[in-house]
């Protein structure tokens, strides 16, 4: 199982990770860190 997991990680996850890092599209990246709000939904005050 560990071998399968390692293979999956190297072939699927590392490329996705590097792509996201390169494009800075991840929630872990600097662009998100600098975004004006971090709430999952727009911050809407008033009656819902």
């Amino acid at each position, binding site marked *: *199982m*560990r071998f*399968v*997991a*390692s293979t*999956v*990680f*190297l072939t699927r*996850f*590392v490329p*996705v*990770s*590097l792509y*996201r*890092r390169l494009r800075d599209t*991840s*929630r*872990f*990246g*600097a662009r*998100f*860190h*600098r*975004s*004006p*709000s*971090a*709430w*999952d*939904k727009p*911050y*809407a*005050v008033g*009656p*819902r």
Partner: protein
Amino acid sequence: MSVYTLGVSAYYHDSAAALVRDGVVVAAAQQERFSRIRHDHGFPGDAIAYCLDHAGISLDELNAVVYYEDPELKYDRVLSSFAGAGPRGLRPFASVLPEWWAWKRDVLARVDAELLALGRGTAPRATASQHHRSHAASAFFPSPYENAAVLTVDGVGEWQTTTIWHGRGTSLELVNSLSYPHSVGMLYSAFTYYCGFKVDSGEYKLMGLAPYGEPKYADLIRRELVHLRPDGSFTLNMRYFAFHQGSRMVGRAFEKLFGAPVRDPESELEQRHCDLAASVQAVTEEIVLGLARAAVELTGERRLVMAGGVALNCVANGVLTRSGIVDEVWIQPAAGDAGCALGAALDHSVAVHGRPHLAAGGDGMSGALLGPGFSDEEVERFLTAGGYVFHTYTEDKLYDEVASHLADGAVVGWFQGRMEFGPRALGARSIIGDPRDRDMQKRMNLKIKFRESFRPFAPAVLAEDAQDYFGLTGDSPYMLVVAEVADRIKSEAALRAGGPGRGLGSINEARSELPAITHVDLSARVQTLTERDNAPFTRLLRAFKAATGCPVLVNTSFNVRGEPIVRTPEDAYRCFMRTGMDVLVLGSHVLHKDDQPPFAEAGDWRDEIPLD
């Protein structure tokens, strides 16, 4: 016919079970109290068995079993986390993922199988709630409020780390949320780890260390680690953290930023660790205030209820209660993951049965005394079988007898009624002492609890006397709010200094008339007591006040460092004999250490209990 719902939290930390009957919580307990493994994450079979026995039912009579979180959503987050980890995630991925593929994705089937293995009948198939919904339900449904803003803050659930809900009657509506990895719980745990304490257990030590320091690094944290927004949201700069990559909480960049490697556990604490603790505490308070402001703004409610591990940060809770942002705050006493079992069960139940406690007034937690209890006859059988020497008192004599021992300086193990649910000892499984005694803190820390000398003790005070001793803005029945001691009991030196003493060198200074419970910053984590919350402990306090004029006692949990709080008379007797306690009170029975037969154990018990 009554309708029963069982809530279960398990397989992460602080596994627990809770049983709700017709919208009323009738029993709840953490598995650690039975297994004697602190923060036990295993299936809470013993806690479930206790809940069933207490209600006198089998699994067949349950209407529903609700697991506290959604395994599929959590799996999704785990995968995404590794996708953000880069090549460094290889080793943790290879060790973590096989477990997910083997059973964690289908955790509900495991819960069903474990329930069947209890041999107590057949339970309905387990269903899943969501982690922060369980927290929110645990905060709102048993609260004393018809409507309230609900704030949950912890490390991480499935994806969410912080949520705001609007609670109205029996409805709970999600208003907004923050998601992983942006988490104030993770921020606090990262500093806990960096200062050499255990994650998910040492956070309260960091909180206790903070008053010895100055928030020298707070600006650095705000500048580099956390981006706080005016709308109350925040993000972490993941360049510095490593919790998404494996077993370390912080990366090399974090160590470089603060100029030193992670502190070795049990090595000497330096002033910089106190300053780091003070700094992250200051930033945490700022974040919590921002979130509370957002909760009020988004819901229009002036009453706030809270749960999640961060809601156990009673210093931040104290700041919040004094801030004026909200009119009233109620915090779930089992605010950590154990409380999710209770929330999951209540969430399922209230839709049909409503919230019956609202009609009676007060909250629906029964003083958090929801665990197992033992009758005087059961205790007597245990004591007689062991050949232990004890004296039995009628109720009217018991309190005076114990109060006189306390007034003479004795440290007393106090075991009464049903055990507390949640991390705090609230006077059912407590070690108590006279707070006026200058040496009490040192004695309790070093000879009874065997823990670090900087750690403070909490006071229990009669609710009607609380304002004379502490700057509280309301009641604090679950010891979840820190307040400053009143000026009138501060020592002359503290008043002359015009503020708190700082630094580890000031540990043993007497800062007030109640030195054992006055922390270095002149604060105390207060428990206010009424007959409604805990009648025996309140009556003991009244007797102590009658004997001494002081309505305050030191109240700390009945255990030693690293051990779960005692559950049974046997646990209590063992802890009593292993430590420097003088007197043990088990229900109506009083035991004196000097009267007991020799106590011998194979080996040193300290080797059995891992340090926390």
